[in-house]
């Protein structure tokens, strides 16, 4: 069933347009990654979903209007918005007590279980914990809530690679099941590449790419081209090219036809050099980075 359904989501702050007609459709059990540069509108989308901001357009989250029904919605939706929003004066034990007190679907024993795996002391105040520990604490609180939708806004920013890996590992191992849905935004796209089931690129308030990871993997290919094949490769109109270790690395969108009516195939590319699935961040740069200000050019071709 539909967890999030949005049509023509718009939001302007004064003359700045944060969202310019975003459509969104997320089914139960998906893990959607929302990727975009700063100020692209990712957080605005999330805030609208969480009932933290007003918007124009149609938006239903778990069949509710988030803006008018935030309190009710928050029984089924959890979120970690930004980093370090846990009140710094609070003790770990108080955080557990408070959430247990106000949340009907919080399982305190479960949260205690997650915390037991960390070095977090029950009597510590949040301000005494390291950044990584605060994230662990917040995640322990959130994972102990039997929610249907979990929203994560840059949950691992400022954390080192170990904490980041641990964060997504515990999310997948201890929390995620097919009846839960997760939406995550992050700048560290490589962290989530193997976590996501769906991918959405957003830029300047518009959706630039919206596809499942299966589609992503069958549609985009990255080729490290042998020098002698470079001209031939270029003729196939890659969506992006860059230099790495003296070799040209080209990204192709198999959905585009370089020559009218002639589909680009994997074999054809394999003849040019070494083929693999591009990283999300490389594709992100490919679709947006080299086209400053351009959300039009690629959009038409790349949007599903």
């Amino acid at each position, binding site marked *: 069933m539909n967890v999030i359904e949005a049509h023509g989501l718009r939001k302007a702050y004064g003359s700045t347009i944060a969202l310019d007609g975003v459509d969104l459709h997320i089914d139960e059990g998906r893990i959607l990654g929302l990727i975009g540069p700063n100020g692209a509108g990712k957080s605005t989308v999330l805030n609208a979903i969480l009932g933290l901001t007003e918007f124009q357009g149609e938006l239903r989250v778990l069949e509710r209007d988030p803006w008018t029904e*935030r309190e009710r919605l928050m029984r089924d939706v959890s979120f970690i918005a930004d980093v370090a929003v846990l009140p710094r004066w609070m003790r770990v034990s108080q955080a557990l007590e408070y959430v247990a007190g106000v949340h009907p679907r919080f399982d305190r024993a479960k949260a205690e279980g997650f915390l037991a795996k960390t070095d977090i002391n029950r009597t510590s105040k949040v301000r005494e914990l390291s950044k990584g520990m605060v994230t662990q604490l917040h995640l322990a609180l959130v994972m102990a809530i039997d929610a249907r939708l979990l929203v994560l806004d840059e949950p691992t920013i400022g954390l080192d690679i170990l904490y980041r890996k641990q964060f997504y590992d515990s999310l997948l191992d201890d929390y995620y099941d097919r009846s839960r849905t997760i939406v995550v935004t992050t700048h560290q796209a490589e962290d989530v590449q193997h976590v996501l089931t769906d991918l959405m690129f957003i830029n300047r308030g518009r959706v630039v790419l919206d596809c499942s990871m299966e589609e992503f993997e069958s549609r985009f290919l990255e080729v490290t081209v042998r020098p002698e094949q470079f001209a031939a490769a270029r003729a196939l109109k890659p969506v992006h090219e860059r230099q790495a270790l003296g070799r040209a690395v080209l990204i192709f969108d198999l959905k585009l036809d370089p020559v009218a009516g002639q589909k680009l195939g994997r074999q054809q590319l394999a003849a040019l050099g070494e083929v693999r699935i591009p990283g999300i961040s490389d594709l992100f740069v490919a679709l947006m980075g080299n086209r400053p200000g351009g959300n039009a050019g690629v959009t038409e071709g790349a949007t599903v």
Partner: protein
Amino acid sequence: MNTQPNAMPNSPLDARQSSPATLSSTRPFYWSLRRELWEYRSIYLAPLGIAGAILLAFPFALLLHLSQIARTLSSLDPAQRDALAEPYDIAAALIMAAAFIVSIFYSVDCLYGERRDRSILFWKSLPVSDLTVVLAKATIPIFVLPLLAFVITVLTQSVMLLLASVVLLASGLSVAALWTQLLLPQNLAMLLYHLVTAHMLWYAPFYAWLLFISAWARRTPFLWAILPPLAIGVFEKVAFHTSHFADLLNNRFSGGPDAMSSMMGDFPFHPGMHITPGAFLAAPGLWIGLLFAATFLVGAARIRRYRDPV
């Protein structure tokens, strides 16, 4: 707020979700109140600190003025009673003042502070409505602090009385006169009356205004709380050479020079003081003020919904 225990599941979603424990509607309020006491420990530490300082100083005062106390007790002049009661009145006044000052700082800061430290994003991730949060915060200055001031005063004055009795007994003096002349229960009843009428009911719109500004201001909530009323007063003075607005505020703060103060029980109290609760309850100013308080609080809840962290 609405757990809807009897609501029919009107969608498959509700049917699935209604089985786990549903919370009573008062629980979010109760826990919101508790978290205020966790966060702002000065709510009880400040009046307790004052009480502690008084209790530390009181034995010295007793020993220094022992002969004077003995003389006062032996004379049956009612005018001397005031001198005897003075330390107890001062203790009550100081504790009340501490609670009042904490009320002001708390009210100005609480809704602004949660935006400043961004913790509002955490609070809003939980199923607690904005109105519940605002009402819990309003409860602190309007109910919790006055009642706390009363309880701490009762305890402090009791300990003071015990200390005085011990000192008198040790000096071979009778304590009967002290206990009969002090009239502490009567004074405490007056204090409670004053706290309920003045600090709870009469000041409610003032606290609600501070909370409203705290929810609204993007920075310097203190200035925003003070400047607009000041500006209105100055404007009125310059434009019309009148001071109705200033009089209104002055009346609200001090109880005013008019009949209001005697209705609420003026401080310090006299045993024979005449109070008129009926007149207090019948005063339109009370109800207009409470209407303003309700408006400010509903406004604060609405603004909390829109405001981003600062």
